[in-house]
């Protein structure tokens, strides 16, 4: 199954993890402390986020730290802009249809 950024943000726990690690690198245990779910569940979300290439792991001593790949988050902005753009294009086309209709009436 292909992973992408939209799978990463489709889940509320993963969104919360993104917010958590946006400001600082954190170990899986430190992340899990913020949730009422099991550590396995948090691990699963971290694995998906990693597969979505939204987070990266860094080994520091004996611990693994997760950090957010901020440049990847910007893809969401691009997507929103694209969806908005679809509507803009659609409406520009309707403007064109309307002005053509107006000319034909005259």
């Amino acid at each position, binding site marked *: 199954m292909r992973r992408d950024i*939209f799978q990463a*943000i*489709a889940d*509320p726990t993963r*969104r919360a993890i*993104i*917010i958590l690690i*946006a*400001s600082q690198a954190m170990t899986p245990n430190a992340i899990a402390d913020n949730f009422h779910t099991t550590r396995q569940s948090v691990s699963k979300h971290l694995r998906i986020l990693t597969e979505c290439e939204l987070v990266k792991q860094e080994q520091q001593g004996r611990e693994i730290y997760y950090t957010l790949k*901020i440049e990847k*988050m910007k893809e*969401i*902005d691009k*997507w*929103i802009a694209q*969806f*908005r*753009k*679809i*509507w*803009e*294009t*659609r*409406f*520009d*086309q*309707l*403007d*064109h*249809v*309307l*002005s053509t*209709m*107006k000319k034909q009436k005259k």
Partner: protein
Amino acid sequence: MSMSLFFDFTVDKQNNIINIKREFAADRSTVWDCYTRSEILDKWWMPLPWKSRTKSMDFREGGKWHYAAVGPNGEEHWSITTYTKIEPQKLFLASDAFCDADGNINAAMPSSKWTMNFSDTGKHTLVHGIMQFPDLVQLEQTIAMGFKEGLARAMEQLDAILAKQ
């Protein structure tokens, strides 16, 4: 278009709604026709290079619009719109779903309910489209973005972090 026409696009994630407002430089009955007559819809509904091609249109309560989005290489994505309520030149309600060439709805794909309101703004017409999704997943599938509330906050935080770097 050089003249500036009001355009507003907002996502209400708490209620799974997208609001799309747009003003058009034409009277209400003309704009109404553009949204409800398939021969006109086919001229603008799909953003280029896609085109919409109507297979059948029956604009009345309970009626359906069955059309394909046709891509530049001839690829076809079929959709069906079912009209549930119509008040001529004022509003219509519809549900939107993906389907096949025979009109069989694909339940695995996202669907949404539409309300289209038409009102006068001086000489122009304002169309306020409200897309309602049954749940967040479908909203996110469709617009593949899913943030005005939850992630918008994350975005602000990210913006703040980026600004510091």
